[in-house]
């Protein structure tokens, strides 16, 4: 394959150029992230990946003989995503997109088997490096998940039940806000006590913060439809929709950052939330019929 460089046809050449552009783009992304990361360990890991990407770029360049410019847009896009949503999420999202590009490897491999081997090796190496990135917020994923889940299942259920039982927007807002507040406080105490009792390396106060914050944000998202819509049934539908959206976004985040399957977790949680909401709705209906509440 020593003459490989000279036998590239136009189609393959274009594919290799695309690869080359991908590598240089990633090089710039990692370099930018390395510079803006305060944590020394993470900054070093990022620099190493950036150097690797440069190496990949050089490998492809040997075959194409051309210099390529990075995609400025992608550099900024993934830089921003990583800054806002976290390093691990941003990088894995990017690598996830790269995997699709890897299908192109198959065809290139027919002409350049040596190149494919190099790419494969480097890919594995890169993965190992990415796994070394240590991000605080991922340590507290379980706490965030609990905070979200509790709010989603419990408050959606409570609101469904109250909507059916009371049917009065103002009283539902009143009770929903109080139930939500009590829940946030309860989640905070559970997180604190639970983390302290488990005696791990996690800080109880941080667990409390992550758990309660996730819980509070969800509570606000679930309650606000009742503030803006006069019809409680419309509000309930809006709340249910918000619950599904929160679940979708969060399941997606977890599945990318932790490389877990998305579908099952998402469907399971949707079933739990909506199932409890459905049951509570029935209980609310029964309460209305049998307990004759007047207000």
């Amino acid at each position, binding site marked *: 394959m020593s003459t490989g460089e000279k036998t590239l046809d136009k189609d393959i050449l274009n594919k290799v150029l695309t690869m080359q552009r991908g590598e240089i783009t990633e090089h710039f992304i990692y370099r930018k992230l390395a510079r803006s990361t305060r944590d020394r360990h993470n900054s070093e890991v990022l620099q190493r990946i950036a150097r690797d990407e440069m190496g990949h770029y050089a490998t492809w360049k040997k075959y194409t003989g051309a210099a390529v410019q990075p995609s400025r847009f992608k550099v900024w896009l993934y830089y921003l995503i990583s800054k806002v949503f976290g390093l691990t999420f941003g990088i894995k999202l990017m690598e996830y997109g790269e995997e699709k590009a890897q299908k192109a490897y198959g065809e290139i491999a027919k002409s350049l088997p040596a190149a494919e081997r190099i790419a494969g090796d480097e890919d594995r190496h890169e993965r190992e490096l990415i796994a070394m990135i240590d991000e605080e917020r991922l340590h507290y994923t379980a706490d965030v998940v609990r905070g979200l*889940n509790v709010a989603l299942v*419990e408050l959606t259920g409570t609101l*469904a039940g109250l909507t059916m*039982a009371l049917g009065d927007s*103002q009283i539902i807002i009143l009770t929903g806000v109080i139930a939500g*507040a*009590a829940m946030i406080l*309860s989640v905070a105490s559970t997180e604190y*006590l639970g983390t302290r009792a488990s005696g791990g390396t996690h800080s109880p106060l941080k667990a409390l913060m992550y758990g309660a914050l996730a819980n509070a944000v969800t509570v606000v998202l679930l309650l606000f439809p009742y503030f803006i819509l006069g019809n409680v049934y419309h509000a309930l539908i809006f709340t249910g929709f918000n619950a599904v959206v929160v679940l979708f976004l969060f399941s997606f985040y977890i599945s990318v950052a932790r490389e877990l399957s998305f579908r099952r977790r998402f469907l399971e949680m949707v079933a739990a939330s909506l199932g*409890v909401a459905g049951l509570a709705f029935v209980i609310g209906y029964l309460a209305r019929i049998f307990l004759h509440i007047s207000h």
Partner: protein
Amino acid sequence: MLDRVTRQRLRAAQRNELTEHFIYRELARSTQDSANKKLLQDIAEDEKRHYDFWKQHSKEEVRPDRLKIWRYCFIARTLGLTFGIKLMERGEKQAETAYALLAEGVPGAQDIAREEEEHEHALINLIDEERLHYIGSIVLGLNDALVELSGALSGLTLALQNSRLIAVVGLITGIAAAMSMAGSEYLSRRTEESDQKPVKSAVYTGLAYIVTVMLLIFPYFVFDNVFHSLALMIGIAISVIFAFTFYMSVAREISFRHRFLEMAAISLGIAALSFFIGFLIREFLGVEA
């Protein structure tokens, strides 16, 4: 010849051993689990030997305490083997001091006391009781229900000031919360891959939750005055915390005071905060129920 006081202590010790022998034998008879049955039989044998030892010195027969046998067998059967036995052994601490005194007049008494303390204790700790495996799940349900429901109910009391309405809202919130907790217990046990079965854990959590919810909201079904209901609800919350902390402290041999005060402070603190939030909401949202 032994003096009168020593003789009396001897008889008390002898009676105590015989009573415990009967208790362990009775419990062994009614226990299905064969490992636990064997353990209880072993302890019963030990108690019998101790009894015989004292008898050699006192040279008389005593009768067991029938009431005590019945009481501890009842407690062990309803509230759990470990709890019943440990509650009984706690009472025995006094007996141990008597043994120490006895050591002056009776050679070998101290050995019996030590055996009682070490060997028996080791055996008791071997008793494997299902419900204790799930105590974490039960505590989870109880704690969460106590903190959250007492909080929500206090807030609602001030905001709504309508007993029936508060009861219904509390019931709906409580049921939704119980299902939510049971679900999350199921999920966390499943990912944990521990000995605890996920479904069983979820059932324990959910049941503990629902029972606590019922206890907390029932005052609102009984009284028309919401503040009387609130007072009774707080009283019930503290009683529940007291009862289960006591159970835990006996069965798990952990300190009672600290845990009790901590849980009571959290529940009441959150209830007070929610009460205040209820007040604010009523003021600022202008809701008139």
